[in-house]
């Protein structure tokens, strides 16, 4: 079992999607505690990945390949996790606000979060405020990630936060925002919980937010 957990970590590092998924299934079939697979296999492997990324030994394409392997394993594992541990790998809903069709930053952030074990539900681009509010009601995510590239669409993020308040669900979800013209000050101004200048800081902040 320990050997297989080690192999999971190695598989994540080399981004072997199939191997990591198969090993996770095998361990589950062997009756291994899902919590142990998560901690000693998956999280252990992804910790090495993020360290290597910080040390400039791995670059975005390799990290995303590892994240994909992580996501594959999580699909197998998530239904077996207890409520307590699955909240450690919570749900994130992401969307680009109305009037904006740019999504590469949002997608990148989503993929990196999947790599950290989050279940990411991406609503796509040009999403109406009311649709975003409904998605929060429906999916009950711990985190809502909003994105806008343009100064002309940026105010829509504030509009979403106000709509969450009006719907009485603002306190049920943490809101994170991002995009080139966005700043910490702007996040504060519109009452967002966090701003992330890039996908990896976004992932770090998401992890902090669900701990808080």
């Amino acid at each position, binding site marked *: 079992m320990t050997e297989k957990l080690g192999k999971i970590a190695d598989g994540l590092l080399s981004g072997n999607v199939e191997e990591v998924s198969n090993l996770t299934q095998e361990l589950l079939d062997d009756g291994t505690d899902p919590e142990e697979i998560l901690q000693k296999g998956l999280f252990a492997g992804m910790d090495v990945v993020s360290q290597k990324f910080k040390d400039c030994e791995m670059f*975005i394409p390799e990290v995303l390949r590892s994240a994909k392997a992580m996501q594959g394993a999580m699909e197998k594992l998530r239904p077996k996790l207890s409520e307590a541990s699955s909240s450690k790998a919570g749900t994130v809903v992401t969307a680009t606000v109305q009037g904006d069709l740019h999504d590469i*930053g949002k997608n990148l952030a989503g993929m990196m979060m999947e790599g950290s074990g989050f279940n990411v539900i991406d609503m796509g681009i*040009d999403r109406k405020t009311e649709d975003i509010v409904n998605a929060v009601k429906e999916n009950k995510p711990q985190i809502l990630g909003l994105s806008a590239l343009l*100064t*002309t669409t*940026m105010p829509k993020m504030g509009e979403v936060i106000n709509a969450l308040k009006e719907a009485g669900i603002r306190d049920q979800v943490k809101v994170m925002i991002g995009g*080139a013209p966005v700043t910490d000050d702007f996040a504060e101004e519109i009452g967002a919980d966090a701003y992330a200048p*890039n996908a990896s800081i976004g992932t770090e902040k998401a992890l902090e937010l669900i701990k808080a």
Partner: protein
Amino acid sequence: MPKINQTIQETPYFRVLSEDQIERIYSAALDVIQRTGARFYHEEALELFRNSEAVVTDENLVRVPLSLVEKAIKTHPRKINLTGRSGKHGIKLDRDTVNFGTGSDLPFTYDRQTGERRRTTYQDVYDAGRILDYLPNLDFFMSHGIVQDCPNTQTYDRHQCLAMLEGCTKPMVLTSVDGEGLQDLWRMCSLFRGNEKEYRLNPMFITYIEPISPLMNDRSAVEKLLFSAEKGIPCMYTPCPSSGATAPASLAGMIVQSLAETLMASVLTYLKNPGMPLVMGGVTTVLDMLTTTYSYGSPELSLASAANTDVSKWLGLPMFSTGGCTDSKTLDEQAAIESATSLYYAFLSGANLVHDVGYMDSGVNASLESLVMNNEIIGMVKQIGKGINTEEEYLALELIDQIGPGGEFLTSEHTLVHYKEWFQPKLQDRSDYATWVREGQHTMADRIQSETDRILKEHEPEPIDKELHQELKKIVQDADERHAK
């Protein structure tokens, strides 16, 4: 006797794609349009496509037969002339004529008092305009920053255009919020020419429009394209793919995809009203795979832009390229290295408009000092472009013989005439060490800063006629009223 049948290469020659490679890229772009297609989020555009040989499926996915693309691409004029508001400054976009200018819409500006970055204001755009108006090596003006101290983000473009017109008399490239915004900008600029038809003969600006890579065209971009086609407004449809993220990581693949995006705009405007002046563009660069920024300082940006320029000449379209920009957060060594490198290659490639001069922090921050620094670099670049003249007077045989072995050239008439053809630096220091110390050991950064101070203090652009100015303001106010909540 003059020699006959000679080829004289007076200026440097630089290209990165062969004729055969260009054919390959163009052919591949046609395949993308026919096979993959592009999405259009605009009903009239879809209707225009449906009523043509194009095929619309899956709500808004448009695929176009190459016969239609080939028809459309031939209808754009080969050249565009632009003149500034006062008529004093003009530029030509024809083959191998290179003009330099700023970029547009940077959300932040470095405050000259505090050094901190803050949101760009009307005054910042006006000041950038004045600097641009003054600097002799910069030929056209994009707003540099995006005006954010206006009542409504949906009318920022009218305020911005007014700030630009007040500050600068050079030709412009303008961004707009949507079709309605573009119409207002076009009305504002038309006022300087008297009427619509006169304006069309003597336009002041090119409208800047972007697809969203890969292969997406949003509502506002399409509105602007259709309005430009209707009114014959010179227009650039300039993809901003990041290689490896929103386009293939291979530069050829990125160029193919960008070209397909541009050709789609050609077809759409052709269906609306053939003959719109179209500029090919593209800020074609890489996504930095450590930081995930869209890099403005990468060598790949210059290489891919030069390749795009080769394609544009082959197609007979003017080209909008990029240079003088940096990923650096301050005006430091990195900024100078990256700015100089991209300016050289954009110039040598022969692109008609080299924009984004003065862009800092990967297209996020504006600095007025960066414009002043780049003016100096462009002076050097343009000097290289003059090449070597080998006519009799320049071979100087008579002179060499006259001076003879062991003589000097300093006092000859020939020197007095020809040294003036050299580049004379304005800000770079070439003094000896002792003189440099005696004069206060100023660095390039010091000199750039005091020159920027001086220009801002002294340079006033030619004013706009008072009545005309009122009419311009009226258009801006009307827009604000229409959009007031």
